[in-house]
């Protein structure tokens, strides 16, 4: 598991790319569902 997370010493770069991507997509979905709730009521 530690070895997997380390990504051969490139963990910061690899997870930096994956993490920010996931966070941004999750934020977009969150904001959109919030907007959806506000427009329907």
């Amino acid at each position, binding site marked *: 598991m530690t070895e997997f997370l380390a990504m051969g010493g490139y963990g910061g770069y690899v997870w930096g*790319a994956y993490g920010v*991507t996931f966070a941004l997509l999750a934020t*977009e979905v969150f904001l959109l569902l919030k907007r*959806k709730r506000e427009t329907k009521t």
Partner: protein
Amino acid sequence: MTTQSIRWLWYASPQTFFPLAGRIARLAALLAGIFALAGLYVGLFVAPTDAQQGEVYRIIFIHVPAAWMSMFIYVVMAFWAALGLSMNTRLSFMMMRALAPTGALFTFIALWSGALWGRPTWGTYWVWGDTRLMTELILLFLYFGVMALQAAIDDRRRADRAGALLAIVGVVNIPIIYFSVQWWNTLHQGASVSFTRAPSMAAAMFTGMILMALAFWLYSIAVAMLRVRCEIVETQ
């Protein structure tokens, strides 16, 4: 006129498109989740370590699909812009507004993941003056420009037409991004995948990339459909 084309015109009205958009969004979101899980599994666990770059190459499963989507969404947005300007259909401009933020998001992800890939492989996060990097940055500004124009003009019809015009003019940037690695000397590597020849990478790497591209594509459809529903409700 055939019944087929009448059905398409039927869906050109925002009110009739609204329930269809909801069904498309649910189906696309479900499939996006499945493809993302499969793509992440293949990309992180099945695909072998790259002989030259080691594990850092796994950024490819984010970077290339995001870069593809950044260009593809722009072309689709420009298509709706052209349709809106020529046919004056309300739904076309709504589709434009629905696509722009997601396109900008994928452009940023392509730039961000590219920077994190560039640092360990090129020794730098960013190179000013590199054509591939510059044209992708211009793409981000084009998305921002279209959104800013639409937001800045109070009259909605004028705002939509101005945004559409910029979107159409900006489409010239897309082939320049795509062919920049062939036309100029750039630090960015050439395409590993093209329509005309077999991919120059391991099969599992290619599969992971295609699965992630499908996931991002379906995600974009789901989000754009949700957003166009908001646009339809808000403009009533």
